[in-house]
């Protein structure tokens, strides 16, 4: 009994002595360590803002700044240094960007990347001294488009964040969010859910038509303007009223493909409107399919495109119905900014579109699908019944 008490006392005593020694050491070293760490952190900040005299970490409301921003440091003379983490396809880049008090970039470095950086490593230097317009005009590096685009967006986010922190306002909404907001404002009865209408008739002067999913009505887009037309009503705008009348009266009928010979293999279905336009669903080989018509070489899938064409061969509207292209690469073609380029084109000039760099196979798949549509149109129109 006595022995165990003695042992305990000895052990506790030794612990106490060591604890006092540790406390003393910590008392001396802790402030020095903290100072060193601050200096190390400042070193990184100075790299992107060489003229900075002192930095202070700022707390901020994440909802008010671009989503990529993770840390904000305020420089004494009014500039900011932002730490950003890129999102999306090239996520995980940690970028440090300094913004001067006058709203120009003081420097940018990539601290961490999820891939080996080549020329992109010094890409940040190209932004030094530039304002928003200058940043916009900076070219991305070919062969590293994705990376440098993500980099550029991070720089733009930094400039926007500096404006917001300085008390200004910046529209941080994406194009989709702006469109949605405009549709909601034009037709509140649509309950915020709209679908873009696939146009099968020639309607002049209209850029796009959206229908409310709940049947409340239509929204016509002309340039930046949005014109609502409630179900059963008409518009005071003449162009809109004329277009609406055409769309309301439109009707389509299925075409029996077995009645025709020599149709392209990749024509899936065909319809004809009362006004004589054709609505065709055609396919083109996606990435991974080596031969269009005969032999499926590997794991690729066909891209299915719906296209409406006038009898004289002018494309009215295009829509991607199905695609399974690589995320972040081929699927960039599935955006309207790409396939919308076919609208208004004819057989002679539909190839004159801006291809998506890095997505050559997918682009070719779309071109092949459109080619199939024109080939089908000729036969369907020819009346081979």
């Amino acid at each position, binding site marked *: 009994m006595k*022995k165990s008490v*003695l*042992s*305990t006392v*000895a*052990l506790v*005593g*030794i*612990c106490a002595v*060591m*604890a006092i*020694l*540790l406390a003393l*050491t*910590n008392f*001396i*070293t*802790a402030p*020095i*360590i903290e100072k*060193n760490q601050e200096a*190390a952190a400042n070193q990184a900040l100075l790299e992107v803002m060489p003229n900075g005299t002192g930095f202070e970490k700022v707390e901020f409301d994440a909802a008010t700044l671009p989503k990529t921003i993770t840390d904000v440091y305020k420089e004494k003379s009014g500039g900011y240094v932002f730490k950003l983490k890129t999102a999306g396809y090239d996520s995980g880049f940690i970028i440090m960007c300094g913004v001067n008090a006058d709203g120009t970039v003081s420097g940018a470095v990539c601290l961490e990347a999820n891939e080996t950086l080549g020329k992109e490593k010094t890409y940040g230097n190209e932004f030094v001294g530039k304002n928003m317009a200058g940043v916009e005009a900076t070219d991305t590096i070919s062969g590293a488009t994705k990376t440098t685009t993500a980099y550029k967006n991070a720089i733009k986010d930094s400039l926007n964040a500096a404006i917001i922190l300085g008390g200004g306002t910046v529209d941080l909404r994406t194009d989709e969010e702006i469109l949605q907001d405009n549709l909601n404002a034009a037709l509140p009865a649509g309950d915020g859910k709209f679908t873009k209408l696939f146009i099968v008739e020639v309607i002049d002067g209209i850029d796009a038509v959206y229908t409310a999913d709940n049947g409340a009505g239509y929204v016509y887009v002309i340039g930046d303007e949005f014109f609502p037309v409630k179900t059963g009503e008409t518009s005071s705008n003449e162009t809109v009223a004329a277009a609406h009348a055409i769309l309301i009266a439109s009707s389509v009928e299925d075409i029996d493909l077995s009645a025709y010979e020599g149709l392209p293999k990749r024509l899936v279905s065909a319809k004809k409107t009362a006004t004589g336009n054709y609505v065709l669903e055609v396919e083109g080989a996606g990435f991974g399919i080596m031969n269009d018509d005969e032999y499926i070489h590997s794991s690729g899938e066909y891209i299915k495109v719906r296209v409406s064409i006038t009898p004289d061969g002018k494309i009215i509207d295009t829509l991607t119905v199905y695609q399974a292209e690589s995320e972040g690469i081929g699927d960039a073609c599935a955006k309207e900014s790409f396939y919308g380029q076919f609208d208004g084109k004819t057989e002679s000039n539909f190839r004159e579109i801006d291809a998506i760099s890095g997505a050559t196979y997918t682009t070719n798949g779309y071109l092949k699908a459109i080619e199939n549509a024109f080939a089908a149109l000729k036969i369907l129109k020819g009346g081979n019944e």
Partner: protein
Amino acid sequence: MKNNNLSVLLKGLIKENPVFVLILGTCPTLATTTNVAGAFGMGIAALAVLVCSNILISLLRKIIPDSVRIPCYIVVIAGFVTIVTMVVHAFFPALYEMLGVYLPLITVNCIILGRAEMFAGKNTVGKSALDGIGMGLGFTLALLVMSTIREVLGAASFAGIAIPFLEPYKIEFLTKAPGGMLVYGCLIALVYVITKGKAPKKHSFSCATCPSAANCRVGCAEAPAEAPSAETEKGGV
């Protein structure tokens, strides 16, 4: 007496070198000898902990009850390691970054616990301090020799200074873990040759001095008369 003290100090360098003869502290030895600067820092840090813990343990050797001596040693060693870690972090941040996790891991470096158990727990403060210095220097020396071989031949540099004419001939394998093992083995063999006949026999650092000897008397009563082979007499991490 003076002569005796000197031998306490010097035995750690070669005759009882903790790394090459006692085969203790293998893990930090392999891990930190890829460059000379890191190895030197590691050696000095271990030396500091070794001397401090040897002195304190020797001071307390009459107070510490036998049954709780190991926990007491661990507390003392861990405490000094933390102190050294904090000091290095504050005053040598570059070294702190370089050694990383191996710095706090000095706590479980068995050279230090081994010397506490084998020597400091039984000898006077003065002798224990000398033993700590000797063993610490022996450890540092071993790390320096090994890191010099590995860095000069493996990375064509010395303490970070490039040696251009060796650049085309560098054997990068030596900077990797297997290369470290190879160099380690060669050096053990070399030291064995140098100290042949003089290296400590099993009884001087085996069962009798094992931290668990008090609980495990197996084999100690009938200590072998013949000198055991090099392979079986050494052990440790």
